[in-house]
């Protein structure tokens, strides 16, 4: 478990967008985020509205459900990663999923999400992921087949000198 108490953050300056086709999940996420101190939470139940809103609202973090229609969270992430503009493609993205088997987590990772949160969500798990993303902002990797966060940083913290020597550079690229 992440040691949180020593590194408490004031999250009131964050601008977070939540995308889910369940109105109740949006309500839950908004309540949790506001209780954690986030003042600006934009909830969207129609995934196709996200692209316009992302540019309009200067979003710092996007939290999206995976299983939605007409486009799911995987397609949404891929579209954001290939979006024009200087900042939007770099938006930190957390994916929410009730299906956290390896196949679905891999699909989300390959699309370029920073974190996958398993439903049901708890305030602690949500805060831990935000905390980790603050502490370890991932560089982005652009390859022929992938554009997204360097998951060697986001999933395990920055690599130590020893790990950099011993791990091949392509351990997480697909």
């Amino acid at each position, binding site marked *: 478990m992440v040691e949180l*108490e020593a590194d408490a953050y004031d999250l009131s300056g964050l601008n977070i967008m939540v995308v889910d086709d369940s109105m109740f999940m949006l309500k839950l996420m908004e309540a949790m985020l506001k*209780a954690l101190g986030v003042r600006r939470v934009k909830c969207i139940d129609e995934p196709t509205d996200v692209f316009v809103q992302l540019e309009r609202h200067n979003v710092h973090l996007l939290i999206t459900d995976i299983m939605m229609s007409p486009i799911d969270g995987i397609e949404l992430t891929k579209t954001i990663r290939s979006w024009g503009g200087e900042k939007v493609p770099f938006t930190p993205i957390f994916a929410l999923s009730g299906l956290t088997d390896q196949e679905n987590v891999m699909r989300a990772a390959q699309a370029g999400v920073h974190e996958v949160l398993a*439903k049901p969500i708890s305030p602690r798990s949500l805060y831990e992921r935000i905390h980790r*993303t603050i*502490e370890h902002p991932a560089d982005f990797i652009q390859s022929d087949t992938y554009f997204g966060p360097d998951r060697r940083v986001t999933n395990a913290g920055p690599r130590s000198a020893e790990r950099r020597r011993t791990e091949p550079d392509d351990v997480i690229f697909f």
Partner: protein
Amino acid sequence: MPRTNGRTLKRIATPLKLGDHVSRSGEHSVSDKLREAERAIETLSNEFRQHAKNDLTQLRNASGTEGTGTVFEVSHELRGLGGSFGLPLLTQVGSSLCEFVTRVENSNPLFQEVVDLHIATMIQIVCDRSVENDATGQQLVEGLLAARATAERTLGSRPLHAK
């Protein structure tokens, strides 16, 4: 630019860092914030139970006339939310129903019986707070899962993700 396995890789520093928009919190501890969030969830809890009860009652009353897709949508939503509201059994039964309608073909009355049994169990969990808090709740769910397993042996099922 480094190359890995013949692929060109470029590392780019992100211009969007959450750390640029936060500061160290002096006023409230993390524990305070988490307690505040738990209170916020508790405030929504009754509304969630009512929401779940309404959706499940509609499904029960429609018994079989709603498509499998609707059954999946409702149970998928409730499995995602149940645990957050202190209803882990609702999440467990919702997951079971999602798996069942994904794995089993709706071509036999036994299919609908198992679906109805799941819906009735979820209504009981949502309406009776004691179900989550004593051993009978777990026994209820174990009985349901055993009935589902028997039905799947009878009806045949396919692996998950096949649909």
